[in-house]
């Protein structure tokens, strides 16, 4: 059973288009995240949701809009795609309890290529 799954795995699209990436976790975690990994493999947090509530929103263009319909899902919608949005996007989840640091489980990633 896949713990954190993402669809699609690959996404190739034209500049200016709008696209969505879906993420689901079956671990029962209460916190989910989106990370962006650029061409140099640098991983950077974009958003964090706890119990469907946005708790962390790093400096990300407002063309990126996360949506959490329930605790198990965190989708990422991107409007007006730009060349610089090309990257691998990772979804992750963890169980946050009383301030303790718990392992974040990452999905397999979605490679987005904007032409």
């Amino acid at each position, binding site marked *: 059973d896949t713990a954190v799954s993402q669809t699609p795995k690959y996404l190739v699209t034209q500049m200016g288009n709008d696209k969505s990436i879906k993420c689901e976790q079956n671990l029962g975690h209460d916190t989910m995240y989106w990370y962006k990994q650029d061409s140099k493999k640098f991983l950077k947090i974009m958003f964090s949701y706890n119990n469907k509530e946005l708790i962390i929103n790093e400096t990300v263009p407002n063309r990126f809009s996360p949506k959490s319909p329930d605790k198990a899902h965190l989708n990422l919608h991107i409007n007006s795609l730009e060349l610089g949005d090309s990257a691998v996007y990772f979804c*992750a989840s963890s169980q946050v309890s009383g301030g303790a*640091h718990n392992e974040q489980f990452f999905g397999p990633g979605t490679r987005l290529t904007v032409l």
Partner: protein
Amino acid sequence: QQQVKQSPQSLIVQKGGISIINCAYENTAFDYFPWYQQFPGKGPALLIAIRPDVSEKKEGRFTISFNKSAKQFSLHIMDSQPGDSATYFCAASVALSGYSTLTFGKGTMLLVSP
């Protein structure tokens, strides 16, 4: 501002050798230091983690050494194997009212030659 600096960027080690990756941090509020391993085409996976109240943690062939005064920590892979070839990321986080996010280093590509 890069809060976690990782070196080297890439590393080639002979099979059976010791791989050493170093990280330094600036934020003294960090209180959790994990290392993640990423294979090509896969997401990062937690390898080993340490909290600042201990100076060393060992799990099998993997050891974290932590120097709080120097604000540095390192990963040592003993008896490195070709299967260890991957990208390794150090990270750090601080609990904020029950939440925490990971700040990653830039990664080290490790190649273990047979």
